């Protein structure tokens, strides 16, 4: 464990809240009392459970229980497509569509427990496929549509994807050539219409033939529901397993961290290909029976302001990169829009810098509320709450039901809780909340390593101040956080190494004012190859073609040799320190230095 660093004094003023100004009573006002009285088994009673005591299924809580009640005709999903397209699905519509999809899966011979992958932009079919798969007790795994063929193949392979729902264009561009490598992939469903393509079926034909009546079979709370991939420093991406019981956390965090009320118009800007876009872009708003907005278009500040105003968005959950881009545009750009409906703004993905939190007040009349969680935690764990003071730059306080601590690893393999305020250590959570991952698929050893005694170790370094607020410091490993997404350096290095010119590759996260970090690669060439702008572009193109824009490096530098340990491991930490002009730290293991 690294020794405690000098803590920077907190100079940003605390943003106090005037409770008289809230347009409605926040769901959490007395933090201490709610925490003291909270337990997860009582929280479970906020949900209905399947009729007849048949268990707990996310899709029932999200759709069916509303579709038969007073919310049946309320808009569940309001979709704003590109070029002004618009489609609304009420809870009743969503029930019928997901029933059809669940029936269609059975018709295709897909069994409970099998994995249904989705590779789509933010279109209604994505939401129908994920929720329909959950009804059929399949495991739903949405993939980011900007992934290139390699990340797609790896994830389909690890998850043994039985079904893939995608578009004809994405299929042709990224999947078709992979089919021989994916023997498990039995069915590819294309959501658009067109002439038959071998090895695929069309969504409309399937849906038309399927009944809109479906009864969710008995579902155990520990039955696997979702598979979300995340990246580690080494090895292949990890498939974090989440179960149907996770919905309890989704609901509780929607209540307390996002302050969802019955009449809210909620907009989570994250793509469901990342865990935020599933937990909060699909599940939590629906379990609360509110109207959730889906915007297909990628980020554009003015388009977003237009959406916030025109759709009367009340609760908005977005990400630091977008907020920083809006900041660049300036607060004046917000002025022309009537954002009177907007009553709560939250952010997640990476620490939101204090300036951006405060800029929220300048531009929107309220701060952005940063919160913290990760793929493995399944839901928000630490948050700045609507009714509580915000300390800009802090991730906030643990949710009710969540015990968080700063720990350090001890020499005997255990951990020691650090009680002194503002001392850096690893952020740990007491295991046992409902949306905690139940495993990394086929990676028991990597899963077990995350736990020591009662603690789940997050891999994030943080501090806690005397008031109990947590402050993010950095990652304990080499994982890169770019625009809120975790990128494993190994996945990028492996792809670069596949190029015939590359002898060695080392990939780091380079700090960036917009994205937090960008992926930067250092490569050493094989004999016979000389560095040139042409080769740099060829490598960039190679990486982009295989990995997609979201994962491929933004910068590639050539080196004659990369710094390595005795065992030949590339020292990313050293590459990074040198890139940033920081002290090199302990280099006793350095055997072969950079040239």
């Amino acid at each position, binding site marked *: 464990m690294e020794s405690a660093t000098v803590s920077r004094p907190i100079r940003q003023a605390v943003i106090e809240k005037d409770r008289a100004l809230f347009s409605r009573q926040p769901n959490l006002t007395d933090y201490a009392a709610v925490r003291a009285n909270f337990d997860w088994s009582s929280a479970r009673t906020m949900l209905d459970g399947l009729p007849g005591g048949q268990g707990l299924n996310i899709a029932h809580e999200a759709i069916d229980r509303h579709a038969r009640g007073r919310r049946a005709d309320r808009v569940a999903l309001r979709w704003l497509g590109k070029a002004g397209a618009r489609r609304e699905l009420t809870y009743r519509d969503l029930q019928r569509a997901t029933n059809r999809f669940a029936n269609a899966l059975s018709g295709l011979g897909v069994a409970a427990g099998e994995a249904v992958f989705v590779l789509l932009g933010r279109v209604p079919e994505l939401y129908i496929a994920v929720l329909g798969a959950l009804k059929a007790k399949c495991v739903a795994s949405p993939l980011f549509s900007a992934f290139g063929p390699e990340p797609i193949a790896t994830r389909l392979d690890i998850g043994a994807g039985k079904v893939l729902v995608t578009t004809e264009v994405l299929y042709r561009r990224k999947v078709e050539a992979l089919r021989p490598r994916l023997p498990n992939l039995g069915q590819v469903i294309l959501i658009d219409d067109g002439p038959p393509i071998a090895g695929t079926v069309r969504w409309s034909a399937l849906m038309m033939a399927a009944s809109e009546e479906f009864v969710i079979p008995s579902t155990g709370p520990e039955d696997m529901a979702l598979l979300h991939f995340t990246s580690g420093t080494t090895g292949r991406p990890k498939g974090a397993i989440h179960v149907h019981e996770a919905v309890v956390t989704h609901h509780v965090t929607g209540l307390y961290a996002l302050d969802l009320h019955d009449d809210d118009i909620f907009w989570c800007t994250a793509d469901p290909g990342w865990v935020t876009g599933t937990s909060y872009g699909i599940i939590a708003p629906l379990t609360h029976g509110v109207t959730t907005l889906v915007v297909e278009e990628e980020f554009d500040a003015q388009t977003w302001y237009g959406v916030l105003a025109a759709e009367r968005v009340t609760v908005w959950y977005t990400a630091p990169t977008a907020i920083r881009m809006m900041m660049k545009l300036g607060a004046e*750009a917000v002025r022309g829009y009537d954002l009177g409906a907007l009553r709560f703004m939250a952010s997640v993905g990476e620490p939101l810098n204090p300036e951006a939190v405060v800029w929220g007040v300048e531009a929107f009349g309220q701060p952005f509320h940063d919160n913290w969680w990760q793929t493995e935690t399944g839901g928000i764990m630490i948050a700045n709450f609507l009714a509580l003071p915000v300390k800009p730059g802090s991730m906030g306080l643990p949710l009710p039901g969540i015990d968080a601590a700063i720990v350090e690893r001890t020499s005997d393999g255990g951990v020691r809780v650090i009680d002194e305020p503002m001392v850096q250590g690893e952020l740990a959570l007491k295991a046992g909340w409902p949306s905690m991952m139940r495993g990394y698929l086929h990676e028991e050893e990597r899963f077990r390593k995350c736990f020591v005694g009662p603690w789940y170790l997050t891999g994030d370094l943080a501090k806690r101040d005397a008031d109990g607020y947590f402050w993010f410091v950095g990652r304990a490993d080499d994982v890169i956080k770019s625009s809120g997404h975790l990128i494993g350096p190994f996945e990028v290095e492996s792809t670069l190494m596949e190029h015939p010119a590359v002898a060695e590759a080392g990939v780091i996260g380079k700090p960036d004012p917009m994205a937090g970090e960008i992926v930067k690669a250092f490569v050493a060439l094989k004999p016979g190859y000389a560095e040139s702008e042409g080769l740099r*572009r060829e490598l960039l193109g190679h990486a982009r073609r295989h990995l997609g824009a979201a994962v491929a490096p933004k910068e590639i530098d050539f080196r004659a040799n990369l710094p390595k340990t005795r065992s030949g491991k590339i020292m990313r930490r050293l590459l990074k320190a040198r890139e940033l002009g920081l002290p090199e730290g302990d280099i006793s293991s350095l055997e072969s230095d950079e040239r």
Partner: protein
Amino acid sequence: MSEPIDKQTIIEILTSLAPEADFAALRGDEDLREALDLDSMDFMNFVIALHERSGIDIPESDYPKFRTLNGVSAYFTGQQR
């Protein structure tokens, strides 16, 4: 520093960001971000490069005009007149 931004220059900049793309197949009215698989960082770097090459200050409120090749061309034709 300040050179006219013609279609060739635009393609040159885009090639440095997405060297793998098939520019021969790129239509003038296609959404660049979609057709070339540009993420928001790539797009920002695109605009920064246009600014550096042209010497023209590009307010961010003009970014939406840069979604297509035609849009970018028209923007600079207008500026340079």
